[in-house]
């Protein structure tokens, strides 16, 4: 009886994630800052778990960053989103997977609005048809790309070459996660674990042998804040919010930070550099920062993909301390080489943060 009750309660925190046949929509943030994460995601879904995923070259930005910077009206964003749905429909797909938390939030918001305000849906159909002659069905299932990695986390674990375990001590590595606000804060039922018990990343960490640390500011925003980051005069807001998260996680000595949104790892990585330069403060061991990873990067490491093929050289905070703990072998000489080992120079070293 008790178990039944508990199961009922936890049912609210489950999310249905389609089994196969995903229509892919890209994140502009991820492709610019973590292009190899996108490549790795495709590799995992296609070559490791053998699912059908499709991209149509005519899809575009969801306009979400513009929407949340308040320079794109909601009506316009709805029509841009509807155009993506039209491409999905035309290509015979019903399940959409989006690779950015902001974007996932935008898709969720648009779909909820259409449920509550059918006239908005009608107007959107009308605008889209007039502009493009396209028509669309709403998707049956919308998943964030991390939902898919979460769904296949145990399969990934079965193929693991490395685990989230300190090879020297045999102890699980400590991971802190950052879910990203737009994943489930507005529509908790759309995210694994809802807004209260975020489990999408925690599930991966646990499955791959690590330990999840529940730090006080776990659910707090990374401080991106759209206009607060993009406009130079406002960036103090961004770094202050992120700093609060670092201070909150520091006592737990995390071995890595795992992120959900392609924006968050960027900020959590770069602001560590800025805080080090401004205040001389570093949050990792021995003058290093805490390595920040996307879930695709972490999955890739677990699967034994070369760290430089995963794009870890595009981070400002060195990931080597984590690679060493996991016992991953890598060639430091190859870190900054281009295609065919071409020499393309190296970034200069920060003055405080050790890299």
């Amino acid at each position, binding site marked *: 009886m008790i178990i039944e009750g508990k199961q009922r309660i936890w049912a609210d925190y489950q999310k249905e994630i389609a089994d196969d046949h995903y229509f892919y929509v890209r994140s502009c943030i991820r492709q610019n800052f973590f292009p190899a994460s996108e490549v790795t995601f495709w590799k995992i879904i296609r070559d490791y778990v053998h699912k059908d995923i499709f991209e149509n070259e005519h899809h575009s930005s969801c306009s979400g960053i513009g929407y949340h910077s308040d320079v794109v009206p909601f009506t316009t964003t709805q029509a841009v989103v509807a155009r993506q749905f039209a491409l999905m429909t035309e290509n015979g797909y019903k399940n959409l997977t989006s690779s950015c938390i902001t974007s996932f939030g935008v898709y969720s918001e648009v779909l909820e609005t259409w449920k509550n305000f059918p006239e908005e849906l009608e107007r959107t159909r009308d605008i889209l048809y007039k502009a493009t002659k396209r028509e669309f069905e709403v998707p049956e299932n919308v998943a964030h790309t991390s939902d898919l990695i979460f769904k296949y986390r145990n399969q990934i674990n079965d193929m693991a070459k490395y685990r989230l375990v300190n090879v020297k001590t045999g102890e699980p590595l400590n991971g802190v996660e950052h879910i990203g606000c737009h994943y489930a*804060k507005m529509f908790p039922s759309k995210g694994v674990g809802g807004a209260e018990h975020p489990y999408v990343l925690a599930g991966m960490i646990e499955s791959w042998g690590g330990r999840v640390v529940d730090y006080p500011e776990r659910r707090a925003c990374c401080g991106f804040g759209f206009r607060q980051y993009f406009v130079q005069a406002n960036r103090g807001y961004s770094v202050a919010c992120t700093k609060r998260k670092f201070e909150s996680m520091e006592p737990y000595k995390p071995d890595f930070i795992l992120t959900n949104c392609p924006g968050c790892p960027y900020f959590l990585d770069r602001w560590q550099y800025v805080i080090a330069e401004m205040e001389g403060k570093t949050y990792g061991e021995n003058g290093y920062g805490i390595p920040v990873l996307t879930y695709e990067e972490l999955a890739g490491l677990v699967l034994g993909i070369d760290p430089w093929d995963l794009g870890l050289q595009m981070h400002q905070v060195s990931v080597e301390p984590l690679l060493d703990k996991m016992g991953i072998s890598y060639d430091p000489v190859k870190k900054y080489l281009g295609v065919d080992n071409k020499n393309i120079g190296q970034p200069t070293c920060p003055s405080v943060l050790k890299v």
Partner: protein
Amino acid sequence: MGKLYDMLKKDVRYQEALKACINCGTCSAICPAASFYCYDPLEIMEIVQSQNETQLEELLKSDKIWYCGECLSCSTRCPRGNTPGLLIMALRKLSQDTGLFVESEKGRQQLALKRAIGDNIVRTGYCIYIDTMKPERHPESGPVYEWIYNNRDEVMKRMGANYKGDGPGPMRNIPQETLDEIKKIFDLSGGTELFENIEKYSEQKAKEMGLQFDETTDCEYFNEIFTKTTKKHTL
């Protein structure tokens, strides 16, 4: 009730965001912007709920509506199912439609966002695009970004991206016929109109402030709004 209220009520986000607010202050307690700026989401809810046209106009002219980071954390916590962040979005739209946004320092920054992100969407099909994110505007991106930016052809190739290529894949060029469709969507849905409004009111304001104004991201007015803070906004 007056004209501004009538306009605000037409925004579905207003209808979604504000049912009777009980002034409990939960949103203010959870809000990251309230712990950094002189900002209080509860106050915004109260003003809007009072339906006082003069106060609403003051609000639309003020810095107050530009502090929110749109994280939507307030949505999760409000016991009445309100979303102050969503109401803020409706207010920001109204402030731009009526030109009142140029009356505040933070509001004037909308021109920078329009030119940086808005124009990107229509020109490239992406909100963010590496070519337009210059390291000198982003010193916080660190030496690694400078290296990436200066070697972007090579780095993107090394990462397996299809930078400036045709067909699918990360960083590909979006085909012209797609960009034409996006432009048409913007024209028919009010997107282009909002862009034009932001430009028009900003140009007027630049004149009033005696700052040089042109269509680049390097004119006096742009540099002023992008980099300067002349009053105290933070706690």
